[in-house]
């Protein structure tokens, strides 16, 4: 096959991977900071997808315009969820927490099934059919926009964690739990903010992903798993790792789809997960605890 085909597929994979990376960033904040294993991460993104697609269906709004309002909305939902429902589970045995999130995931995906039925839905935008030429590369406009938006959102998140007081406080907690307590940070509030940020990422990623895929109530679990794979490969606690991991997975899946069968794409991701868990559990950039 011509080199340009590989290049195009690779470029497309990288751009999609940026969106995955944003989703994984959200999980990184939730799992890495609040230490909550969000087994409902993918389902939350499914909800974001539905929100965006329905808004488009009803009022014709381009998903990219909904990015910020959706992220804000999801932030509030996440904050409330953590503060209200999940907080008591922080001191319970691990498996209780997992099961809680699994239950939330079940409720979300079946709720979606109940409300919207099993048929796939998507947006149809004019620019989804356009491509831009960059030398030998022919890139879909929609994918380009989605990837760039993901990059921008990630940058915003980086900035928040590097520059804002709350961001620094959250990172301080992630680095040293006791230290944060000593300094007198209101942990419940911090946890809730961190969780909210995580869900905000998911909301944003959903808006971007709507440009690329159709949604059904059952897409959740696959994305949950994907998010975990990316976070583990990139390294828990590493923001750069999550983004890079996303790109890597996007690339690997795209190329696997080309070289192997499209339906076997995920097997590559799982294979990578298994390898990483066994050989380098701290991931590419994570720290060994």
């Amino acid at each position: 096959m011509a080199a340009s085909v590989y290049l195009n597929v690779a470029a497309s994979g990288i751009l999609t991977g940026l969106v995955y990376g944003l989703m994984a960033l959200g999980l990184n904040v939730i799992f890495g900071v609040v230490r909550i294993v969000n087994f409902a991460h993918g389902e939350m993104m499914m909800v974001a997808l539905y929100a965006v697609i329905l808004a488009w269906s009803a009022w014709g709004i381009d998903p990219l315009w909904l990015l910020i309002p959706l992220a804000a909305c999801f932030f509030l939902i996440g904050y409330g969820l953590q503060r209200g429902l999940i907080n008591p589970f922080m001191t319970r045995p691990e498996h209780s927490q997992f099961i809680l999130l699994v239950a939330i995931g079940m409720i979300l995906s079946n709720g979606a099934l109940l409300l919207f039925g099993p048929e796939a839905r998507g947006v149809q935008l004019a620019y989804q059919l356009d491509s831009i030429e960059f030398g030998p590369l022919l890139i879909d406009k929609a994918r380009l926009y989605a990837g760039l938006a993901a990059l921008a959102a990630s940058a915003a998140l980086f900035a928040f964690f590097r520059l804002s007081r709350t961001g620094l406080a959250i990172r301080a907690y992630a680095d040293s739990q006791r230290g944060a307590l000593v300094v007198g940070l209101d942990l419940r509030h911090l946890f809730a903010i961190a969780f909210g940020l995580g869900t905000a990422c998911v909301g944003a990623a959903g808006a971007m992903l709507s440009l690329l895929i159709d949604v059904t109530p059952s897409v959740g679990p696959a994305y949950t798993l994907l998010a975990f794979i990316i976070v583990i490969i990139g390294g828990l606690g590493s923001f750069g790792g999550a983004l890079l991991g996303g790109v890597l997975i996007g690339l690997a899946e795209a190329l696997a789809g080309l070289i192997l069968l499209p339906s076997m794409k995920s097997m590559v991701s799982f294979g990578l997960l298994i390898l990483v868990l066994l050989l380098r559990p701290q991931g590419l950039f994570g720290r060994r605890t």
Partner: protein
Amino acid sequence: MNRLLDTVPRRAIWALVALLALLLVAPAAVSPYLLSALVLMLYFACVGQSWNLMMGFAGLLSLGHALYAGLGGYVAAALWVHFGIGPWLGAPVAALIAAAAGGVIGALAFRFRVGGVYFALLTIAFAEFTRIGFEHFDWVGGAGGFFLPVAAQADPIDLRGGPILFYYLLLALTACLFLLCRGLSTSRIGYYWIAIREDEEAARALGIDVTHYKLLAITLSAALTALGGTIIAFYGNVLSPGDAFGAQRSIEMILAPLVGGIGTLFGPLLGAAALSLLGEGLRWAIDAAGIQLPGLTQLVYGVVLLLVVRFLPHGIWPALARRLRLER
């Protein structure tokens, strides 16, 4: 037998006998529809109890347990359809293969000290990997599904027959699993598993080869789950990778023990009964109202799971047992 009944209060034994009697005569007293609901209930009790062995005893959270049930179904079905080897022989073979799969996962995980959430993710990944693999495995039907030929006449040797056959088969399996778990709980293995669950390092300091016992838990759990999987495959007569190995299935399988009570003997059965009752009740209500509500049962199950894990983290059984004074 005496050892098994050692510390059990009289009251509990009578209750158990009564329950057994009830279950034995049930098929004669219920409608065919209810009978098939009972078959499913017993299936969930069996696989739930098998999963419970790993989780309740050794504390290993498997979220990809459908892998073993699916293997149980596919292997036995393939042996029968392609080689004419009947399920009574096929089931143990399938169980062995499932045990091997569990052993591989366990060996990899335990050797590399993968625990907690990472272990759970590993189990999910293996199940998904297998699902996709089977979708391309045309020898057993691939994504289109694998069909077992239905026979005109009942034939217990090839497990061809109506719900009654499967009901008693699953009831027997449930009873055996129950006795097995009871036996294990009062044995050295059971004690060691609990020690591992409580504190691995302390267990090691007491001479317990943790890896060995964890492997034992996972392989035994896998093999027993596969038995249930074989039976249910021959009941439904159609297998598909998505259904057999899917995440939905893995979650479904563990609802009963989670709701009923992890680590207890009766938890899985109680949970299966409660959820079946709830499910049938919902189905009846929806039918009566004449509307279509896909996903409602699962939604309600999700809510029940949420409530249980929030308010009754040890499941329904411990609280119930205390009320009925069936356990000390």
